[in-house]
């Protein structure tokens, strides 16, 4: 009989149908129970969710062997797997992946708060065989993931700047993967925040909105550096709740002026977050979601992980932030319109004509450009001078500047701001001001009374 590979039966491990687990105690008395989650680890290993210390667990620790029955929810094929217990992990990437998935399963089955992951029990698989089935012909997948990855790989390789790379990534998800709702978030250097730089399919773009490291599937994927996905949404991983909590933690109202609302789907059921790795560290997260439950499976995770890897590789290739404009700069035909720019030193937030624009490092960059422009009349700046400017406190990673320039450009464009930035040649950018800037700086100490 041909030995089946675990990789080809991964559909069984999505948690749609509970698995059956048989164990024996040292006296040989069998025990049989249902398991919420069996997780595919690699070709030789699976992991089981350990939620309670019970007879099953005692048996596993004492006799180490288990026999499970798992069912493919689409073909209704019943597979029997004999396996041997290896070890328990109670933290780390595998634990976090299973924790997120279990939270979704618990939410779906009305067991929120009862199912809690205490550990992941890892098993070495001894044998896999088909007990019965298939009983159904699975419906054809709407897209070929391998082909989708190949086409995306090529198209992303043709992006000459970061701005285009981000848009094209989301465009590839839409066209090749049938993914309607997605976003790209970048990490703030080594800080504990991620900010949205691109999105598709939402009522509001949410460019500039922030997620804390560790919050929701996005925050956990960034913190752990592994893909995180969930097939049924649960409050534990919902960003609405997360953002409200963050706001209250900081003593802020949920609708503080400088909070850009997170764009996400209200009725999200499935979510997947893939770390974007550049130079060996997590630079950002590629995120997709759907109102359909169980939209993203193991194969989608593999395919999207490759897209995220391609984005990371391109980001590390030293792309400029934005593409060069073909038309003439408008700076020379500035009108007499007065544009008021106010800067708060406390958080580097910048307001243009009383409307909030951006804060953080992107805010500091715009403030520096505006000050230079007013003082010297300059409109062209090099990325190098920004990178070397200590007042900007830029993180050491080069793509951080470019990603922030994309963020800044997009906020300016989105707000139809009379100030824009565009590329002025390799490693240079141009500040286009449609009027005369008047600047107002609110230093750190004054912020409390003026803001």
């Amino acid at each position, binding site marked *: 009989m041909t030995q089946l590979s675990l990789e080809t039966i991964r559909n069984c491990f999505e948690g749609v149908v509970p698995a059956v687990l048989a164990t024996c105690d040292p006296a040989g008395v*069998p025990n049989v129970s249902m398991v919420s989650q069996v997780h595919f680890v690699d070709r030789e290993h699976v992991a089981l969710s350990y939620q309670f210390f019970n007879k099953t667990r005692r048996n596993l620790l004492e006799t180490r062997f288990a026999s499970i029955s798992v069912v493919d929810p689409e073909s209704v094929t019943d597979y029997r797997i004999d396996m041997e217990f290896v070890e328990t992990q109670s933290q780390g990437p595998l634990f976090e992946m299973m924790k997120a998935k279990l939270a979704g399963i618990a939410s779906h089955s009305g067991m929120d708060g009862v199912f809690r992951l205490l550990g992941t029990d890892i098993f070495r698989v001894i044998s896999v065989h088909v007990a019965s089935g298939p*009983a159904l012909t699975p419906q054809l997948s709407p897209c070929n993931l391998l082909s989708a990855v190949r086409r995306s790989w090529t198209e992303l390789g043709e992006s000459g700047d970061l701005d285009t790379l981000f848009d094209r990534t989301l465009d590839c998800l839409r066209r090749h993967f049938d993914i309607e709702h997605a976003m790209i978030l970048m990490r703030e250097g080594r800080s504990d925040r991620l900010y949205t730089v691109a999105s598709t399919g939402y009522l509001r773009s949410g460019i500039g909105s922030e997620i804390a490291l560790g919050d929701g599937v996005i925050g956990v994927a960034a913190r752990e550096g592994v893909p995180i996905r969930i097939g049924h949404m649960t409050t534990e991983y919902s960003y609405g709740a997360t953002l409200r909590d963050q706001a209250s933690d900081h003593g802020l109202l949920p609708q503080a002026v400088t909070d850009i609302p997170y764009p996400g789907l209200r009725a999200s059921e499935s979510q997947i977050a893939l770390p974007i790795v550049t130079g060996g560290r997590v630079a950002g997260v590629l995120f997709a979601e759907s109102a359909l439950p169980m939209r993203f499976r193991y194969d989608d995770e593999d395919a999207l992980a490759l897209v995220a890897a391609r984005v990371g590789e391109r980001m590390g290739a030293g792309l400029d932030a934005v593409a060069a404009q073909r038309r003439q700069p408008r700076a020379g035909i500035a009108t007499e319109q007065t544009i008021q720019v106010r800067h708060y030193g406390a958080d580097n937030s910048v307001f243009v004509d009383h409307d909030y624009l951006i804060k953080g490092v992107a805010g500091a960059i715009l403030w520096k450009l505006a000050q230079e422009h007013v003082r010297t009349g300059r409109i062209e700046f090099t990325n190098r001078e920004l990178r070397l400017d200590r007042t900007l406190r830029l993180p050491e990673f080069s793509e951080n500047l470019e990603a922030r320039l994309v963020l800044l450009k997009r906020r300016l464009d989105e707000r139809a701001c009379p100030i824009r930035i565009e590329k002025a040649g390799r490693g240079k950018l141009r500040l286009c001001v449609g009027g005369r800037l008047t600047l107002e700086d609110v230093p750190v100490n004054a912020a409390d009374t003026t803001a």
Partner: protein
Amino acid sequence: MLSDQPSSPVQELQDRRHWSGPTLANGVLTSELAEFCQSGLSIVLASRDGAGRPVVGRGLACIIDADGRVRVVFRDPPNAALHRAIASGAPIAATFTRPSTHRSIQLKAPRAELVRSAPPDGPSAILQTRAFADELVRAGYPARFAAAYTRFEPHELAAFAFLPENAFVQTPGPSAGSALTP
């Protein structure tokens, strides 16, 4: 009447302690538990092979007689290993679960006996798998899946019987796994 509310192990243990109605299998089962096991549920099975390793199996239906002897009807071909284990005199464990409420009971016996398929087996399997399929749909599974998941062919049917010596509550939650005793 069985509740549609999620069940809890603590409630199950209390109900057993306060039970004053008829019991079967030398007090291991209450008449209510026997009725529950025969109501069309997920039935999963375990035994052990010649090397002492666990063997998993799945059942279709359950018929409990007046003495509390539990007859489990199963599909023979997918459960060949379990069949062999029972034939060799190995002990048996059977867990009965209602997906919509998570109520779950495990019965154990030191041995079981393969029995000739009897006339009631077919109708019981039909009725109980139909009830279980309805239960799966109630729990949110597509009807197409539920029908395929509970499907069997009459010629596949086999049965074994055992007198349970212990019953345990398996419903997830605190105290899960405790013995159900008066």
